[in-house]
């Protein structure tokens, strides 16, 4: 019979069991989220459509910009960013939010960030086609580089899950983490080239240097290059973004795994 060791439960579920439980939990979280809404699941498509519509209006009418060009630049990265942000903030509170189960049932704490990641990924699967349609309408004739977009999404998704697990672990023991995560994400967003094109700044300027060293720049390039510039992301873009995602995923998994025996005490 399997034996526990200090800090590690004897009933350690397999990855398959954890995945199945996360899927079951995500299903009910999805139902709950849209239960009392008038339009139900349709909000998944309407919300990003309205969001992009408002942004287009603001930048085209209020700021008097070349709407089509900027909208393509903005939409292609903003929608994945919102997925990333939603996943990280959702995962952060997920383990503590799972107290109702963790105090009564031998459930792996991995179930909760995984369920949140599945939920946000499903919502993203509804939202991203809306952005793609908008981009296709604004910029006809997008080329071959679009083929790498799913791979870019995979990199973002892995990074989001990894950072989410890392933050979820920290949040169990320190509730300030939620605010710190929100502020850090806001800072990362506004200081990155998601809103502003990096090539507008002179090489060597403070902004250009900031964008060069900003980790989000490499993630953003995975979408901005195929959609906006019509080119493939560079090897450097893939290497930096892929490495960060892998490190985050590994660190998040390691952190939660190392603390799983202490989670009960932090709830």
């Amino acid at each position, binding site marked *: *019979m*399997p*034996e526990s060791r200090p800090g590690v439960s*004897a009933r350690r579920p397999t990855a398959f069991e954890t995945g199945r439980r996360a899927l079951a939990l995500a299903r009910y979280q999805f139902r709950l989220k849209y239960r009392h809404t008038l339009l139900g699941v349709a909000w998944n498509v309407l919300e990003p459509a309205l969001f992009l519509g408002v942004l287009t209006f603001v930048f085209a009418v209020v700021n008097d910009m070349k709407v089509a060009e900027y909208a393509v630049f903005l939409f292609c990265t903003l929608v994945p960013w919102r997925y990333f942000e939603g996943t990280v903030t959702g995962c952060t509170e997920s383990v503590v939010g799972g107290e109702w189960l963790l105090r009564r049932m*031998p459930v792996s704490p991995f179930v909760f960030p995984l369920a949140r990641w599945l939920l946000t990924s499903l919502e993203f699967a509804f939202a991203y086609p809306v952005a793609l349609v908008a981009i296709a309408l604004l910029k006809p004739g997008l080329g071959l580089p679009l083929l790498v977009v799913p791979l870019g999404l995979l990199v973002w998704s892995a990074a989001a899950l990894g950072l989410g697990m890392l933050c979820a672990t920290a949040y169990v023991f320190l509730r300030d983490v939620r605010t710190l995560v929100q502020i850090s994400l806001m800072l990362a967003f506004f200081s990155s080239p998601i809103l502003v094109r990096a090539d507008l700044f002179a090489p060597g300027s403070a902004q250009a240097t900031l964008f060069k060293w900003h980790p989000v720049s490499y993630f953003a390039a995975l979408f901005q290059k195929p959609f906006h510039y019509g080119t493939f992301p560079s090897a450097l873009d893939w290497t930096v973004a892929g490495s960060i995602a892998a490190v985050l995923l590994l660190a998040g998994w390691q952190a939660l795994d190392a603390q799983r025996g202490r989670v009960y005490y932090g709830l």
Partner: protein
Amino acid sequence: MATVLEAREVTVRFDPQLMLTRTIRERIALGWRSRVAPFVALDACSLAIGEGEVVGLVGRNGAGKSTLLRVLAGVIVPQAGTVVCDPDRRLVPLLELGIGFHAELTGRENCLLSGALFGLQAREIEERMDAIVAFAELEKFIDQPVKTYSSGMYARLAFSLATELSPDILLLDEVLGVGDQFFVRKSMARMQRLIRSGITVVVVSHNLDYLVAQCNRLVWLDGGRIRMEGDPASVAGAYRDSG
């Protein structure tokens, strides 16, 4: 008799610094004061449960009964010692009068979710749903969120579900006295049927008469240690005399 569940030299300490400080401000504030000693809920406690055994845990409040049950369930991972269990046997804990229900989900959804978390297919739970609902007497309320349930309705559904999940090992924490006298009688009858079918049961209760009548063995916990274990009547007698 083969051992199906065992705690070996298990120690559980609840550290107030870990459990009571959640923010940077609280951490700093507690750091300025003298360190509060951890509360030792279980102190090198060992207990082996044999197949088909019905073991009762008694003791005063804070003796470590519920903590030991949580350790056996795998809900709490002890700081020292080991827990040995058979992963092929379905262990169903019924702790804090519940089985892990989400307040916003309906009774039916909670049953389906719990079933999935215990490894059952949705079809398997759906097949048993009528029996679960009928036993809990919640026909009119099963499609309402459990947050609208009274504590008795909540506990009835949890007990009905737990006993319908075909458990091999059932861990019960003070659930047998819940509900009205009719439900208590019904739940006790179901427990007797389950015990006769050969499942293993570990039960925490303050109802000594019930424990003496139903258990093969009684364990008296005191200050996180096992003070006495063995024949239920003898242990119950010694426990009563200690008060």
